[in-house]
């Protein structure tokens, strides 16, 4: 158990803080949004992030990574969350990087992990099929066809789907729609014939896409992991993503809290600063308590991955449920305490609220994770 940061980790956090504050402040997200940027993220900054070792943070040195581990990645994500930095950290590093690390064969690892670490490849995981996260229900089919497979189906909410150089597609190779077994992961070239990608513009101004697969041919060498046995890997990958995303949300929550607190000390009404009203003070103090609990849970969840503990699924659900709920609460309260100003596009609190909702809906919201936790615990 490590709930206190080592010196090395503190250093990494400081580097990340500086990078995101200077290179990807919230003005960067506004610019991407207002210019309708085709990529939806700053490619130059992503290259710099890989130079700093952020892209290869979970990747071993053998493939050119920095191998700082999950706690390190969490620290970077938290700082990214503070400035709402748009980057392929979640799609490429958390999701696809982890999947290849866990399930890839030697060739796939060599090819993909070194490209990710170098910042040369953007990847996206195509899993969702409906408006709610439901990894147990996969209808997209992959049918054997000689020495290859044919994939058909439609995916939605594919993060960074329209900019990905390579996709990982979750498809069913056996069983019924809700069976846990019979799921296989495929590496798919988005330029393949029959792949139709449509960018979806989300409320948080971050990247997502709908992808149609119509009888798309993929060679059997594109199978990632074992045929029909993809569910185990998928669950592990999703837990890493849930925990990493919780770390990003922690940064978002903390930043909204800090900004609101500063506003309460500055805005005057009734001849005094509004932060002197107990009706607001108690709500801030209660939020402070909730955020302290968020921090402990996120740190413990990150170290659970690092230490390969067997309660990763449980702590991932605790973290994602708590951060989904508290980020909703904090952004609602933050907006309310800004009064009319909170309703303006000019003030940042609205942007934090929008990101909070998309992050909450990603990889299971609080309802999903409470239900999952109860199932895992056998009640």
């Amino acid at each position, binding site marked *: *158990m*490590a*709930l*206190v940061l080592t010196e090395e980790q503190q250093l990494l956090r400081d580097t990340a803080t500086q990078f995101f504050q200077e290179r990807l402040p919230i003005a960067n997200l506004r610019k991407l949004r207002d210019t309708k940027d085709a990529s939806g993220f700053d490619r130059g900054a992503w290259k710099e992030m890989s130079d700093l070792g952020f892209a290869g943070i979970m990747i071993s040195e053998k493939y050119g990574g920095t191998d700082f581990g999950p706690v390190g990645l969490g620290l970077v994500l938290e700082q990214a969350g503070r400035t709402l930095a748009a980057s392929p950290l979640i799609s490429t590093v958390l999701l696809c990087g982890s999947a290849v690390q866990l399930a890839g064969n030697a060739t796939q690892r060599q090819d993909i992990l070194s490209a990710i670490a170098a910042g040369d490849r953007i990847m996206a995981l195509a899993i969702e099929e409906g408006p709610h996260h439901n990894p147990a229900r996969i209808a997209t089919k992959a049918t054997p066809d000689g020495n290859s497979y044919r994939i058909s189906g439609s995916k939605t909410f594919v993060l960074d789907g329209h900019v990905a150089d390579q996709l990982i597609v979750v498809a069913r190779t056996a069983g019924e729609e809700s069976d846990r077994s019979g799921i296989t992961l495929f590496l798919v070239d988005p330029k393949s014939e029959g792949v139709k990608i449509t960018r979806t513009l989300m409320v948080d101004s971050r990247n997502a896409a709908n992808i149609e697969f119509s009888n798309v041919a993929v060679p059997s060498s594109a199978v990632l992991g074992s045929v029909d046995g993809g569910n185990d890997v998928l669950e592990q990958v999703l837990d890493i993503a849930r925990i990493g995303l919780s770390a990003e949300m922690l940064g978002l929550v903390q930043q909204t809290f800090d900004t609101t*607190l500063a506003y*309460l*000390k500055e805005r005057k009404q009734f001849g*005094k*600063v509004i*932060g*002197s009203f*107990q009706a607001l*003070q*108690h709500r*801030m*103090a*209660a939020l*402070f*308590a909730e955020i*302290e*609990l*968020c*921090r*402990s*849970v996120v*740190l*413990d969840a990150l170290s659970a991955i690092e230490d390969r503990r067997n309660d990763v699924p449980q702590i991932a659900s*605790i973290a994602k*449920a*708590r951060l989904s709920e508290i980020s909703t609460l904090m952004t609602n309260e933050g907006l309310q305490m800004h009064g009319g100003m909170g309703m303006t596009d000019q003030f940042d609190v609205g942007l934090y609220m929008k990101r909070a909702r998309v992050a909450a809906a990603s990889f299971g919201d609080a309802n999903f994770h*409470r*239900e999952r*936790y*109860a*199932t895992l*615990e*056998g*009640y």
Partner: protein
Amino acid sequence: MEALDKFRQEIKAWLEENCPPSMRTPMPEEETVWGGRNARFTNPDAKLWLDRMAARGWTAPTWPKEYGGGGLTRDENLVLQQELRRIKARPPLSSFGLWMLGPALLEFANEEQKKEHLPKIVRGEIRWCQGYSEPGAGSDLAGLQTKCEDKGDHYLVNGQKIWTSYADKADWIFCLVRTDPTTKHDGISFLLFDMMSPGVEARPITMISGASPFCETFFTDVKVPKKNLVGELNKGWTIAKRLLQHEREMISGMGLGGVGAGGGIGSLEQVAKDYFGETGGRIAGPSLRDHITRQKMDSKAFALTMQRSAEEAKAGQGPGAASSIFKYYGTELNKRRYELLLELMGTRALGWEGDGFDDGEINVTRSWLRSKGNSIEGGTSEVQLNVVSKRVLGLPD
């Protein structure tokens, strides 16, 4: 590390030999050992267990040996506590002396006072009560008016305290008194005296749970020797506040569901299955299941935060801001836990007495009522939130 392992082996062996088997069973509340001149031991093993632990100073493991404590380092104490938990040992002694007064004396008392009072606390010979609150001074504690006059060779105390837990059973009191009526915080002193002194009277008050643990306490011309003043005259507020920190830490622990968790009552999910029913191995009511999950998740998050705070303190990063929320969050969590138990058990948790309900069920009802005091005693939740707003968040008056 090696030394600690050796220490653990020694403790294991010692506990194996010295902790009576009946002291390794869940403790009904009425068997709690409070010590004191009139100590009652419902179970004779309890006395044996107390005496053996006290002889090693392990009722107060980290206090210096010269005052009867165990003289253990923080790490050694951690090992001791782990081993005690492992064999599910009952606490040998529960006492305000151990939890609140002792730590304050170690910091503020003179040598003579430490030698006089600490060993008796360790051995459970003297039971203490806390004379802080008054009818006119609750949250605004520094408004207290109990008068203490310097009569040359002694002090003379007159006034009234209220909510004094166990004043009718305690041997001594640590008491906040007014020694300067012209100022507020700077006119308070910290005094110790014997509850047998002439002029002391404690009248029990019945709580909503039916028990009478606290009292109105009256002082009429009580003579107190001058050597019983702790610290300097009019400097008692600093001691009072520090002692409150120890008290709040103790109360915060309730958030973990340890204290008064309802003797004989199992985990929330087991209670739900037993009292509400299950379908296909799952709790039959999805809404109840969800409430249980919220409670479990928040408890886990709270436990992790206490652990993080302890690790930060150990790493020399100071007590950290997180500790300021423990009293507030822990007690609110404990209250929620009892409300949930009531929902899970339905009318079985709404019995008052008699054969219609078993002891565990009655215990839940009574503990639910008692839990309401958690967010009042030791500083109310609202006062805790005020403290966080002002001291931690820096919000102005």
